[in-house]
């Protein structure tokens, strides 16, 4: 076990943390808002909305993320009409292709979590809201959303960890986040075990901090349950 190599690689690998976090945070936030939209579409009584949402979630959850990334990055870029369109500003950059893929992915999974959260809010709360004269949008914002978020938080914490792991796949489209740097070092030093041990530890640390952070958020939101 080459400990000196592990020590040196550690400093090279942490340079990938900013990009990893950037990718995770941006996709999670975008995905969250999109997920609320998709969740509402799913619950909607309008058939075409709920069916579209259903098939979207089905397709994204039924195919591997790596394939989705490759499809968006290489598949769409193949056509000259794409290259000449305004979409190319976004699709040209591997960073944004990765964000799109990760956002769609987290949106599909999160929309189910949020849907579960929304549907778990007892009708009683909403009836109380309308008895007090609140409109639908107001009662959604003040009553349902906070309760739904509180209910969904543990599952969402899990989703964040999955996003951090998913970010490692963007190394396959030239982005140098932690895994990208790890693979580069391995190809030069031929020491896969040492490098992966260091890289794996960094990811575990990030996930540990996220888990802790979610627990703190849970305690703050539900002081009665703590």
């Amino acid at each position, binding site marked *: 076990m080459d400990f000196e190599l592990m020590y040196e690689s550690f400093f090279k690998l942490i340079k990938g943390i900013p990009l990893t976090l950037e990718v995770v945070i941006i996709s999670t936030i975008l995905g969250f808002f999109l997920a609320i939209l998709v969740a509402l579409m799913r619950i909607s009584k309008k058939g075409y909305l709920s069916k579209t949402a259903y098939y979207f979630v089905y397709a994204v959850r039924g195919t591997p993320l790596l*394939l989705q990334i*490759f499809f968006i990055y290489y598949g769409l870029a193949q*056509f000259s009409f794409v290259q000449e369109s305004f979409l190319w500003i976004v699709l040209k950059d591997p960073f944004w292709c990765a964000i799109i893929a990760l956002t769609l992915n987290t949106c599909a999974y999160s929309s189910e979590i949020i849907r579960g959260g929304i549907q778990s809010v007892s009708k009683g709360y909403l009836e109380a809201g309308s008895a007090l004269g609140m409109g639908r949008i107001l009662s959604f914002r003040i009553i349902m959303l906070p309760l739904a978020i509180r209910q969904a938080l543990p599952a969402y914490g899990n989703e964040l960890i999955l996003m951090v792991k998913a970010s*490692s796949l963007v190394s396959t489209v030239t982005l140098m986040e932690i895994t990208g740097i790890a693979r580069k070092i391995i190809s030069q030093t031929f020491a*896969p075990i040492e490098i992966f041990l260091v890289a794996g530890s960094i990811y575990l640390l990030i996930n540990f901090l996220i888990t802790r952070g979610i627990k703190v958020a849970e305690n703050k939101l539900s002081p009665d349950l703590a």
Partner: protein
Amino acid sequence: MLELLSFGDQGWGDEMLLAGLMTILVSLSSVCLGLLIGVILASFKLSKSKILKLTAEIYTTVVRGVPELLVIYLLFFGGSSAVMYFAKIFGYDGYIELNAFTIGTFAVGAISGAYSTEVIRGAILAVPKGQFEAGETLGMSKFQMNLQVIFPQVARLALPGIGNVWQITLKDTSLISVTALVEIMRQAKVAAASEHEPFVFYTTAILLYLLITTGSNKFFNKAEKKFSKGFVVEESA
């Protein structure tokens, strides 16, 4: 465009379908290995031994917390070395060639096992204590009780979770292209590169995965119905 997917020597259609079959086979064997690991580690977690609990806890935390790509690379590069290392201890000095299928199964199965552990543990905990007590009262041996009373109920309770694990494992097989095993993702990459047609082949790959997913869903729905035969849901007050 469709000629690219034709069967025979000029088209990649036959290769893509064979790759689909390989994906199913690798997923199957990985889930089986994962279930084996899951049963063992779940029993560790439920045992009274602190060491066993800790071992299982470390395994599931690490494997579920580290990106799958890294785990697969580690097992691929390290696994062959580890096997040869053990072989040397036993005096065998040559090279043991583990074929790509075995390595792929081992890598994906190890990951699948971490998820299966939680599913099985949850299922075992969900079996009412009364069942265990009844078994003891009837004078059954632990083995008999586990086999005839507990196991069928665990299977029923775990089935939705196993369905989830199957989905995850199916998608994880797309990450083993480093082992050069020809499953859907790898075949799509090779074909897309050779023909310079990424869109056609990645779309085909998407359709193949969705086909397998849809088939799997039907299978698990049927299985859930079959395992729930004769089971009456207790009416809650």
